[in-house]
């Protein structure tokens, strides 16, 4: 993961914006929820189906609470400068809270701190920034759960024998790297002694590159039996390649994907099972969290508890992280019940 040097306190500009300061304000769990607040969603990329689903969840929740929802963002997932200027703009517009999925853990910091200094609450979801640049991170699932369960899923499909590889997104993707760390750790367990991780490849979340990386894996490792792709773009590219190649059915594929993307490949037997959380719920939780913060029910300190509508009650964990819950495993049997 990120090897940021930990001199965070010294870099936080003029002190007042840092998470510690705002968390030291007092929380009133019984404060009434304010209405009419504007909560802005700033996804990594607009028009990305995954984020459209999650932000749609946020919109549902906000409408229910009587708040105003808005979504802004860049059309490219690697336009960090664009994301920064959106944070700046939202600061100018004095929204109540920003829910942001950060393209870059560090680059948004200055701008987000500016926002917090101006009284705006900052929630990150899906992809975090440095902890001192936001109040709460709404995490889709625990990294540990995700990492380990994917290995378990593949192990079952392979009967615990054979070479495996990982097809990740970008080399810089922090969440990917954390998951991969847990995957490697899981593989150390004795039941995986016949499974060998031969390679981690990166498809840059680009269909064509992921394609070619999959081809390369096949050619380079004739004994490859399984691939884990913990990214939605990677897994569907790999599935499409496998489904049209001579390796179909011989090489197992699992990872993180959306049911709509993967339906065809589950049905034609390319993929036996994969998993994901419900992005819509992720967005809802981010929205509830933002409103709770703005209403003063929570401040972002660990141990605080609040109610997120029908999602139930959530408690803020260490370093301001809220966990959505366990991911769902999709297979032939249940995939038709989902539509996102």
């Amino acid at each position, binding site marked *: 993961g990120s090897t940021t040097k930990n001199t965070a306190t010294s870099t936080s500009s003029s002190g007042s914006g840092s998470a510690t300061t705002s968390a030291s304000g007092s929380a009133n769990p019984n404060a009434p929820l304010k209405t009419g607040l504007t909560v802005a969603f700033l996804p990594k990329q607009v028009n990305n189906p995954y984020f459209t689903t999650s932000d749609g969840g946020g919109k549902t929740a906000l409408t229910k609470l009587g708040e105003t929802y808005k979504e*802004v963002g860049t*059309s490219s997932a690697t336009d960090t400068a664009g994301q920064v200027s959106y944070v700046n703009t939202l600061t*100018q*517009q004095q929204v109540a809270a920003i829910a942001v999925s950060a393209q870059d*853990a560090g*680059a948004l*910091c*200055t701008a987000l701190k500016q926002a917090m200094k101006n009284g705006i609450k900052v929630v990150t979801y899906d992809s975090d920034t440095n902890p001192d640049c936001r109040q709460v991170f709404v995490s889709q699932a625990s990294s540990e759960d995700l990492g380990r369960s994917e290995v378990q899923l593949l192990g079952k499909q392979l009967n615990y024998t054979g070479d495996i590889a990982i097809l990740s997104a970008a080399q810089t*993707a922090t969440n990917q790297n954390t998951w991969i760390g847990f995957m490697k750790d899981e593989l150390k367990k004795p039941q995986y002694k016949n499974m060998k991780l031969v390679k981690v490849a990166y498809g840059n979340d680009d269909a064509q590159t992921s394609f070619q990386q999959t081809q390369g894996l096949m050619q380079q490792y004739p004994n490859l039996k399984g691939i884990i792709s913990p990214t939605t773009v990677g897994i569907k590219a790999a599935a499409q390649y496998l489904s049209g190649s001579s390796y179909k059915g011989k090489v197992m594929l699992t990872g993180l994907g959306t049911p709509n993307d993967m339906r065809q490949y589950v049905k034609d037997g390319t993929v036996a099972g994969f998993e994901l959380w419900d992005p819509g719920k992720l967005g809802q939780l981010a929205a509830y969290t933002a409103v709770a913060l703005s209403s003063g029910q929570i401040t972002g300190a660990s141990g605080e508890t609040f109610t997120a509508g029908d999602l139930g009650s959530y408690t803020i964990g260490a370093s301001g992280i809220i966990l959505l819950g366990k991911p769902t495993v999709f297979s032939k049997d249940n995939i038709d019940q989902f539509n996102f």
Partner: protein
Amino acid sequence: MSETAPAADPGPAAATSKEFRERGFGALVRWDSVVAVVLVLVLLYSFGSVKNFGNSLNLSFLIGNTLPIAIIALPMCMLVASGQIDLSVGSMAGLSGAIMGALWNNGWPIQQIIPICLAVGLLGGLLNGLLVTRLGLPSLAVTIGTLALFRGLAQIILGANAVTDFPEQYLTFGSGRIGSSFVPTAAIPYLVLVVLAVVLLHVSRFGRAVFAIGANEQAAYFAGLRVRRTRLILFALTGLLASATGVFWVLHYASARYDNATGLELSVVAAVLLGGIDFDGGKGTILGAIAGVFLLGTLQNVMSLQDVSAQTQIIVTGVLLVVSVLAPRTARQVRQYAARRRVVSAVKRAASASA
């Protein structure tokens, strides 16, 4: 060029694309001044009727976020005037940022790191320049190659790391502003760069050579100008300022990652084109380039404040580019058509008279 274009209507034969801009509005208007005037109008409108636009924080955001493009636009303008292009600038900025991050992680003092980054930029620019001038390769091809090469090197050097903990006073330089005014601290050295660039391109002997080389390489060569050396210097300058932009980027966003400034080249090219710099070479002013950069930056800022969606912003950028070349041309075309109509009807009259 800084002379006003002649008030001539050369007829269709001389209406090559090179001339169209200046001829478009006749002798009255030069394209770069048009862009500058449009910029001023947009600013006036925004101050008047866009909420939150005029406060100094927003203006400092606007200027600060536009500075990276504005810095690179200076040497790019000259390079393009000499008939070449450098698409590797974004990658060079990324590489210099990556080096900055990697060295900082290894405990180097920042006073040493920054000169090293700049030196790498200079070397990268020289590499582009040497491949273009000594091997005679097309600059477009070379710099598409180095676009991948520099970004790849950045990836090798910094890998997945993101470095954020640079010293406070440097970060303040990168993102702070002077007092509570709207002027970002970094704008001051930028103004110095602008003055240097204007002098270099429009006042010095070097600048004369640049324009001549861009407009007709062979004639310049026959006039004893050092074609290759001039271009080499321009490439080196571009590399140098691209790496300076990389350093600024890291400080401004407080983040060194290998993919910093991805795609910056297209923004620079779009802005420079909008500023009336002709990619056939031989034409363009620093003023035009800067006006183009800030016009795009301001429009984006205003549109974001007005909650215009990203998609629509993209379309507006595109339409602006198309209009920038089409508007002068259309005016001309209409005039010509009218003139032709006159002649044709005169002929018809003559024909009917003789019948």
